């Protein structure tokens, strides 16, 4: 579903990603781990199409299409979703109104009729129930005055409503206490499906106790230095990222 080949990204004169190769199949959950500054978030933003990410080499193919040629909104409409590390506040814009605009932009793109207010509210209530989300959140301006935990849950909620094919969670665990973390993980687990791929970007293994990945990749200095199963994450937690430098690469 997602095929990243030799992806290179530069910021100014600095190389952030120096040849990333990664294949993600449908139904799979991949974790991207790595120390600060290793390029994890850059990779997530490159997939989503952040305008400040300058791709200087390589390719990203998504469901057979050249993702790098697509505008961010077209990627989104084709099913790429990114849960932001720092969800952005949009003052005065009602959360439900925004979500309705988003879902209808996607439906229009796929030639489907737009949802009317009734259909939309039914969908949103159902998703809010699954995620145990406080429904009053819907009537508040997008992320404005939300606590850190509420913002992250709102991201997962948007994901649930938009039902992406590929979800990229960018450090969704940062700044969450354990209860909020569990709630978010529960939401993500509810979204696991053979129809969907999920990439979890995280610094800590902690989140992966709750969202158990099929594959773990370790990113360092802009390269994937190791890939493995879920046990790789446990290993890292015990020995720290320094362990990777001490041991020669096995694969």
């Amino acid at each position, binding site marked *: 579903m997602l095929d990243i080949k030799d992806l290179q990204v530069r910021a100014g004169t600095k190389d952030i990603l120096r040849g990333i190769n990664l294949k993600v199949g449908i139904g799979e959950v991949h974790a991207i781990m790595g120390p600060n500054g290793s390029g994890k978030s850059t990779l997530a933003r490159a997939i989503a199409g952040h305008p400040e990410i300058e791709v200087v080499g390589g390719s990203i193919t998504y469901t057979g299409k050249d993702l790098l040629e697509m505008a*961010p909104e077209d990627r*989104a409409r084709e099913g790429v*979703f990114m849960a932001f590390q720092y969800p*952005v506040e*949009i003052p*005065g814009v009602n959360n439900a109104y925004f979500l309705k*605009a*988003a879902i209808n*932009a996607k439906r229009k793109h796929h030639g489907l009729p737009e949802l009317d207010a009734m259909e939309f509210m039914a969908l949103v209530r159902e998703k809010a129930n699954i995620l145990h989300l406080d429904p009053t959140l819907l009537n508040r301006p997008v992320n404005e005055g939300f606590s850190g935990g509420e913002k992250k849950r709102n991201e997962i909620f*948007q994901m649930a409503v938009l039902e992406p094919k590929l979800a990229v969670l960018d450090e969704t665990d940062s700044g969450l206490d354990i209860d909020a973390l569990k709630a978010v993980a529960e939401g993500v687990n509810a979204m696991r499906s053979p129809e969907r791929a999920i990439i979890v970007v995280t610094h800590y293994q902690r989140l992966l106790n709750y969202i158990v990945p099929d594959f773990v990749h370790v990113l360092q200095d802009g390269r994937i230095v190791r890939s493995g199963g879920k046990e790789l994450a446990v290993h890292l937690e015990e020995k720290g990222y320094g362990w990777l430098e001490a041991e020669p690469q096995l694969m």
Partner: protein
Amino acid sequence: MSTSTDTIEELATREYKYGFVTDVEAEELPKGLNEDIVRMISAKKKEPEWLLEWRLKAFRVWQKMKEPTWQNVKYEPIDYQDIIYYSAPKQKPSLKSLDEVDPEIRKTFDKLGIPIEEQKLFSGVAVDAVFDSVSVATTFKKQLAEVGIIFCSFSEAVHNHPDLVKKYLGSVVPHTDNFFAALNSAVFSDGSFAYIPKGVRCPMELSTYFRINAKGSGQFERTLIVAEEGAYVSYLEGCTAPMRDEHQLHAAVVELVALDNATIKYSTIQNWYPGDKDGKGGIYNFVTKRGACIGVNSKITWTQVETGSAITWKYPSCILQGDNSVGEFYSVATTNNMQQADTGTKMVHLGKNTRSTIVSKGISAGRGQNTYRGQVRIAKKAIGARNYSQCDSLLIGDKCGAHTFPYLEIGNATAKVEHEASTSKIGEDQIFYLRQRGLSAEDAVNLIVNGFCKEVFRELPMEFAVEAQKLLSVSLEGSVG
């Protein structure tokens, strides 16, 4: 370095939909201004002697006045001798029915979405259509007359209701008020007049639509609205002009009078031609608008959405004279490309327990400069007066500017005055966030801007709120690539 400012810079292209010119034969007075021109205008309109005298008084005052320079806008000096002060489409002296309106002019208003045929009118809005210097049609006059409402062109009011005009003309904005008001008083050519008798709630929206068409002309109209005891009226004003390379002057005066328990809601959607992206052409909009809450418990609400004009100079104000009277000002002002706006309000509290609310939203894009200027004055006798002001500025891109000048004058210790202000910027991060959810960059900006303006839009009559949202999105078109 980053592409973010570049994409925001792409905002510079915008289309002005109303820039066409109507080919219609016009009757014009020669360029320039002197007593003879004032006399000619008055004669053209077959005005009574007292009105000519009033004009001449204003003209003499104006000659001694200096153009104000305190406003935060820059423009080439206006040559007042290079303006045509009267231009009217040639038509039959008096129209028996709306069908007699020149088809070209009718087409113009159709194109603007302002049908002047009653059967086509949208949701019961009565329209007075002003084309250059004269009113060409007023709809629903008959229906309104049945409940005693007078709604007609200013010229007609001068002939048919001289006592009312004489009583209220200049009562809120005297001919000596300021440079532009004095100029208007001397040369005003037409405008709208509305009178709502005692206890009558106007059954439909009243509306005036102003269109500048002729080249080299200015538009100087006057609007006067009087709401008698317990009356209610909601009034809407819209305006457009052709795209021309020259600047054109629009100097209007609006006077509102609310007696005991009367309410006037005055909404403006100002969409004069703003000039091109380099600042060539565009309307200079120097307008004096003021309402007097003379009666107890009276209320005047100004709502304005300002998207057009090269320069906007405008401070719709309220004199809160009656006890418990209420003044409100809700404003959205947009400046894109080279546009400049210096706008705000004055709330003058004279009566006891008078209240005022000011909500101002300034949006700057391109190289636009947006200034809020507001005065709240609470007189010594205005015991228990209250004001709440909120001024928010939104910046799109990094070459525009937002400025806020609040003036507070508090004359007694029982007054409560609150002022809040904020400045924010549409961030590339906000736009990316919304695009990541599937919205186009353009829709993303519209969503953010509409969220920002929500408190003002909800004050507009329903149909016009939708209009205003659309207009705003056109006005900011291309602001983010």
